[in-house]
């Protein structure tokens, strides 16, 4: 626990766009998250691991405004976002993907992607209807379409552009979800098991891509079950157990942490 408090006090805010302080979430008598605190550094790929029921997804849902925490605070770029609604949080640049891919199945891959960009002029009812104002909308749509194609190429799902999202395989849907989240121009991306159901070749490509994006300044917080991926790719790892942060540090520190080994790993990795 001492290490975690250290992280909080030492890091300045610009380097930790996302900070969670004493977060607590209770469902009736069950405490899913109990006084969890951590911070995510800018441009990092931080892993969040823990056994089933450790409170990882609940933490995600509290950060992104899907749940309102029972107690504690969430800060994004120094702004308190604890009580903000999901759309307000997303607009500020903190987006998420879902554990089970939630593609918009009756919409095409292209439509899914075109939904994301921020500040779309055509999202006003008046502008979308009145003839004189539609020119600007079309121009912006063309620009967004170009970006979408680039993003689809980046994730190598451009051949599926016209397909209904509901027809995608599990892995493809995961790719779509990540691409869709990135189209919002986020600062921090929360990825909830983005690699589940993705084949090994694609997995490697996806990880390369995440690293590329990290170098460009994007920040990722990643929930993942595959221990090797977390150990090999994340600069920093937060281990949760029974709703609390059990350990917080780099791969070596986690590997040697006895409490982690007891709670989660069973055997030393």
């Amino acid at each position, binding site marked *: 626990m001492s290490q975690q408090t250290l992280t909080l006090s030492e890091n300045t805010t610009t380097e930790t766009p996302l900070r969670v302080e004493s977060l607590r979430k209770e469902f009736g008598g069950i405490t899913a998250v109990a006084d969890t605190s951590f911070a995510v550094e800018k441009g990092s790929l931080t892993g969040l691991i823990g056994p089933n029921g450790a409170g990882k997804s609940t933490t995600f849902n509290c950060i*992104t405004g*899907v749940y309102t925490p029972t107690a504690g605070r969430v800060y994004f770029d120094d702004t308190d976002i604890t009580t903000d*609604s*999901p*759309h*307000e949080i*997303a*607009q500020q640049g903190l*987006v*998420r993907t*879902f554990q089970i891919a*939630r593609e*918009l*199945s*009756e*919409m*095409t891959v*292209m*439509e899914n992607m*075109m*939904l*994301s960009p*921020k500040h*779309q*002029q*055509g*999202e*006003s*009812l008046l*502008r*979308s*209807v009145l003839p004189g104002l*539609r020119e600007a*909308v*079309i121009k912006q*749509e*063309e620009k967004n*379409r*170009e970006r979408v*194609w*680039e993003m689809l*190429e980046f994730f190598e799902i451009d051949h599926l*552009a*016209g397909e*209904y999202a509901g027809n995608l395989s599990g892995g493809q849907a995961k790719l779509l979800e990540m691409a*869709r*989240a990135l189209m*919002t121009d986020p600062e921090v991306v929360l990825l909830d098991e983005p690699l589940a159901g993705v084949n090994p070749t694609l997995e490697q490509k996806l990880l390369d891509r995440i690293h590329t994006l990290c170098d460009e300044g994007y920040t990722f917080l990643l929930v993942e079950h595959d221990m090797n991926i977390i150990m090999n790719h994340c600069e920093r790892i937060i281990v949760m157990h029974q709703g609390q942060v059990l350990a917080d540090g780099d791969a070596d520190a986690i590997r040697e942490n006895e409490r982690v080994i007891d709670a989660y790993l069973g055997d030393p990795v």
Partner: protein
Amino acid sequence: MSGKLSEKTVRETVITAIGEMVGDNDLRMIAGLLAGVYLLCIALGLLAGFPIGGIVNTLRAVTVFAAGYGMLVLALNLHWGYTGLFNIGVAGFMAIGTYVTAILSSPPTMMPGPGLGLPVPIAILGGMVATAIAGLLTALPALKMRADYLAIVTVALSEIIRLSIKSQSLAEFTLAGRTLGTGGGRGIRYPAPGSIGGAVTETVPGMATLAEAAAAVGINTPVFTGLIYMFILVATVAIFYSIIVRIGSSPFGRVLKAIREDELVASSLGKNTSIYKLKIFAFGCALMGLGGYLWLGRSGFVNDLSFRPNITFFIFIALIIGGAGSNTGSILGGIMFSSLLFYVPQFVSQNFSGNASPPGSFAAAIDGAIVPYIITNIGPLRFVGIGVLLIYLIQRRPDGILGHRKEDAAAVNLGERPQSQSRVNKEKSS
């Protein structure tokens, strides 16, 4: 025959005008279905021994019916088809639109239901605004809850509205020194929107001559003015259609579609879904209010009986037949439901029914005795037909006629792809 010819040419111009907006294929579907319905009506009219004026009037009536359904199904498609908002209070919103417009336009001396005597266009605008506000007030609490609650709230509200209209205490009341009222159970009388056909005939140059020419071939003046109103209704449907197509093919429509698919995803991508739902609910309600006034309120008299909940369900059935989510489907469904399931059976029972008693045995039924019995009882039997059709649709074609279609929600062609740099490079290297 010149009257019919002119009707045809006018219709053709309208069709070409719509065609430019719609694209040929959809237009052909609508025109084809209409032509089929017209042929059926002409055949039935001839069988019943109608003169030419009667047949033209039949075609007019079936078109007005189809246009009325068209407007309301399109508005409902905006709620249910695009956004997934389960609004089963369509009748209530139609009632508000009709009654507010009626009270605003009706002169203070008009009985039953005295009003403010405002000019009709302003009254129509007022009716639409009032319906939009009613929609907002309904949606505000209901949209915060799960989708089913909106259905419960709207169906209850629609009955509350209808019973309030009927209530004696609202039949006549004084507001800021002016006496207004809904007329209660006696209904409300107001300047008929349908009378605009007469006004057009009198004022627009050339129309009077046309009316005389029509009268010469047996189409009397009331039918002629009715035809003018019919064209106004058809034009309104075309306007509804083009507005809704524009909404559907815009980023706004894309967000609506996303809300229908998964609201949490839409909000996780930064869309304030409550605002979108409120906006589209209010807008759709305003269209329903206008549709109610122009269609059910066309004669200048309505009462609460026009706005019973069954009209809501009929509009839903028409949308399901046409295919929720498709605008062309909405119109096709509206035409099909109103003509084939509603107007034609009514026509048959009015003009061909005798006093057929039920066939005594199965053999007699097979032998042909069932036919006059069906014709006589086609009124109630058509509801059996609607039930059978719905079961068939749910099993075989749950998407309706056109619900399966891809109508991309974007202001640009999403298939169009720029030759991006990385792609060019890839091609060069390979």
